């Protein structure tokens, strides 16, 4: 594993021009492009779970504002006009059941560089442990199904699964839509009781991705597709057998089914296979941390998908109906399959101002229910989402803009 890390870091460093960065003046004459965006979700919600095998039922109600976030991004061209460098800072309200400390955390804190061929990000950002983003209200809604589990984490914290310090490169060989992707990352680590450990680089990945420019999503069929091999190095102390390496394979894609931008049907599907660590066993009597660790370290496969219909009369988005599903199975365990289905509805009442409603139902087979303590659960939430995105001093054309993709790339 260390050899992989050294090779990956060396390759990464070779793509970055090395310059001294201390004690140089900041040229205030050159203002960066500034992009500010954010989203506030406020949804009264009600959750209930049916206890398994005599365990007590649970219910809860809340005004959920988790996943609300704000982000600012700053970009400048480099002197040679061969690319753009930038910095991103973003904060996010943590989930209401999360064990991450504090109410908010830095989900984005990274430096970037991109040009026609390279897209590089170094720092805290979204993990590369998925290829399809599901249209659920919050990222956590299908967390266990849609992302590669963190085999080094023994605590409940969706933020650990979603965000981590990484160094990632996407290489577009012909400047087009296909990219070879690679990354190294420092996924969250805990001890057996779920207490955080100091971070270290413990994951690496390699893959291929196809991304149609967002501007083309409504007029072309394939929006995105990709496949990624994801490797995690687990500390020996966390492994039940001394096996410290876990591979996962992710594949998926998103497609627009019809060719009518006023009535858009779209579908997406993603599969994740994780080989798991050796000798992981489900023990319902183990501590909570150990049970969470076992779920993260066990061999598993997960299939997720969605179907959406977006109504855009006069080409203005007004409504979206979505149906999202997830199936996950732990093949080494008996009766350890879970299912989830989420219908949701978005009524757009203004630019990025949405009234939303979502229902979720999840059921677990007995083997898995014994581990989690519940047999099935459901939640309903209705609320308001306010989003915004504004660019100031907009002096940089995007790599994937229609002009740059179809009419010649301008640096």
């Amino acid at each position, binding site marked *: 594993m260390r050899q992989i890390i050294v090779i990956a870091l060396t390759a990464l460093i070779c793509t970055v021009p090395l310059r001294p960065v201390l004690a140089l003046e900041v040229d205030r004459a050159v203002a960066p492009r500034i992009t500010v965006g954010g989203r506030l979700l406020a949804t009264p919600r009600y959750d209930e779970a049916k206890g398994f095998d005599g365990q007590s039922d649970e219910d809860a109600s809340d005004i959920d504002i988790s996943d609300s976030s704000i982000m600012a991004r700053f970009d400048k061209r480099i002197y040679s006009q061969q690319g753009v460098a930038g910095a991103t800072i973003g904060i996010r309200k943590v989930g209401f059941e999360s064990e991450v400390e504090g109410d908010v955390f830095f989900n984005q804190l990274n430096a970037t560089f991109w040009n026609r061929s390279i897209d590089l990000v170094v720092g805290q950002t979204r993990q590369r442990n998925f290829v399809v983003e599901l249209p659920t209200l919050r990222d956590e809604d299908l967390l266990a199904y849609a992302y590669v589990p963190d085999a080094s984490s023994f605590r409940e914290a969706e933020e650990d699964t979603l965000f981590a310090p990484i160094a990632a490169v996407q290489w577009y060989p012909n400047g087009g839509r296909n990219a070879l992707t690679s990354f190294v990352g420092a996924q969250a680590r805990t001890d057996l009781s779920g207490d955080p450990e100091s971070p270290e680089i413990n994951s690496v990945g390699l893959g291929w991705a196809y991304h149609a420019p967002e501007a083309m999503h409504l007029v072309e069929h394939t929006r995105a597709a990709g496949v990624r091999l994801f490797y995690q190095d687990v500390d020996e102390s966390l492994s039940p057998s001394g096996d410290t390496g876990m591979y996962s394979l992710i594949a998926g894609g998103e497609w627009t089914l019809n060719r*009518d*931008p006023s009535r858009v049907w779209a579908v997406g599907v993603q599969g994740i296979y994780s080989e798991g660590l050796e000798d992981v066993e489900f023990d319902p009597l183990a501590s909570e941390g150990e049970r969470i660790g076992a779920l993260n370290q066990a061999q598993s496969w997960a299939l997720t998908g969605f179907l959406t219909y977006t109504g855009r009369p006069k080409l203005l988005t007004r409504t979206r109906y979505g149906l999202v599903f997830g199936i996950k199975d732990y093949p080494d365990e008996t009766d350890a399959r879970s299912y989830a289905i989420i219908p949701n509805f978005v009524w757009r009442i203004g630019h990025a101002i949405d009234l939303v409603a979502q229902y979720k139902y999840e059921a677990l087979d007995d083997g898995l229910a014994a581990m989690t303590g519940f047999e099935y659960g459901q939640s309903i939430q209705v609320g308001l989402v306010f989003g915004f995105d504004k660019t100031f001093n907009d002096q940089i*054309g995007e790599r994937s803009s*229609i002009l740059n993709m179809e009419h010649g790339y301008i640096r």
Partner: protein
Amino acid sequence: MSDINKSVDAENRRPEELNEQSERIDSRRRRFLRGAAAITGGAAVLGGGVSGVRAAQMDHSAMGHGGNAYGSMMFMQGHQMEPGLVIEPPGSPGDDEVDYREFDMDIRIVEHEIVPGVKIHMFAFNGQVPGPEFHVTEGDWVKVNFTNHTEEMHTIHWHGVVVPYTMDGVPMITQDPVHPGQTFVYRFQAKPAGTRWYHCHWGTPLHASHAMHGAFVIHKKDDPLKERFPYTRDYTLVLESWDINFAREEMNGLLEGMKQVNLLMSQGKLDPQTHGFFRDFRDFRQAYESGQYIPPYLLSRSSGVEISYNFFGINGKSYPATKRLKIKPGEWIRVRMINASNARHHMHLHGHDFWWVAQDGNDLPQPLRLNTVHVEPGGTYDIMIYGDNPGFWTFHDHDTTHVRNNGIYPGGMLTLLEYEDFEPTYRPSTSVDQ
């Protein structure tokens, strides 16, 4: 064609890029054009028009209109994209009625370099910025086959030329916008004489000011100005201002939207209101009040699109990439300035007075002796310069905020009047950062 260094015979200059064909149009082309005209009805019988020619009576059945009415196809049920369609509007004589000088024009997206290091995408007539320069003689019949090679819609408005209204190029007022892949045939008589110009009239703030413009010079058979000011060289300066950030984002945005509109149109599913087309104001009000249509100008949909010009130019280039005016001692030159930008430009010549002789193409009753002329947006201003002070003289907008490139002086709308056959004691160099 916008090479201002070029010495031309002002009376007979014809742009090579326009593929002027009046003398050599072959029978195959005539058959093609007539065949295409037959698809849309063509100009069959002529009636009285602006020039005294009879108005056309056309069969517009293919356009979805009954009888001989000529109207918009945009409201036709199932209106579809018809790439390759040649549209022959009524209002001007047919090919066999008059002897046309025929030109082919198209519109495409090009990468254009304003100044070294600054390249942007532009809509460009025949791939040029500015578009090709027309030189015709007053009374000539002009036929322009305008083909749209972009995904956006366009027209050509002949600014200052007195044309039949169906040739005026104003979308949804005098014609449908020219759809992607279609050809619209403009026919008119070149009049009145003078410095005129043309520009796209669709999405005008972007299309007209950023690149889709060019000179349309109508020469008199006997020009009294030439007798009084016997000029031997004739320069055209198209004055331009660009917000390259607005242009980039606007073009990307409209291409994104047009891909959707064109897809709907190709399937016959485009509701005209989707494109902001209404039969009349009443229809528009009803659509708004019923909630079916939410206008994009509302404060709920737009906080206003800002245009902040950061590059200024002459004939597609900013200083120091602008080309110089050449003159010899004892020579008269004519300079035609066309303000295709949305800003005023106060053009000042060093070391000389000049004679302002024409405005908007029309000769002034009395030439005025000036050294600064205030060129208004949309206007054309002709001046005569006499070479009586050998040297190198700057000629620039005296709103010096326009003599900058992205805020850095000097740049922008600046060129030089350079004397030929002259040995300088101080030779100019290039300065870009003062």
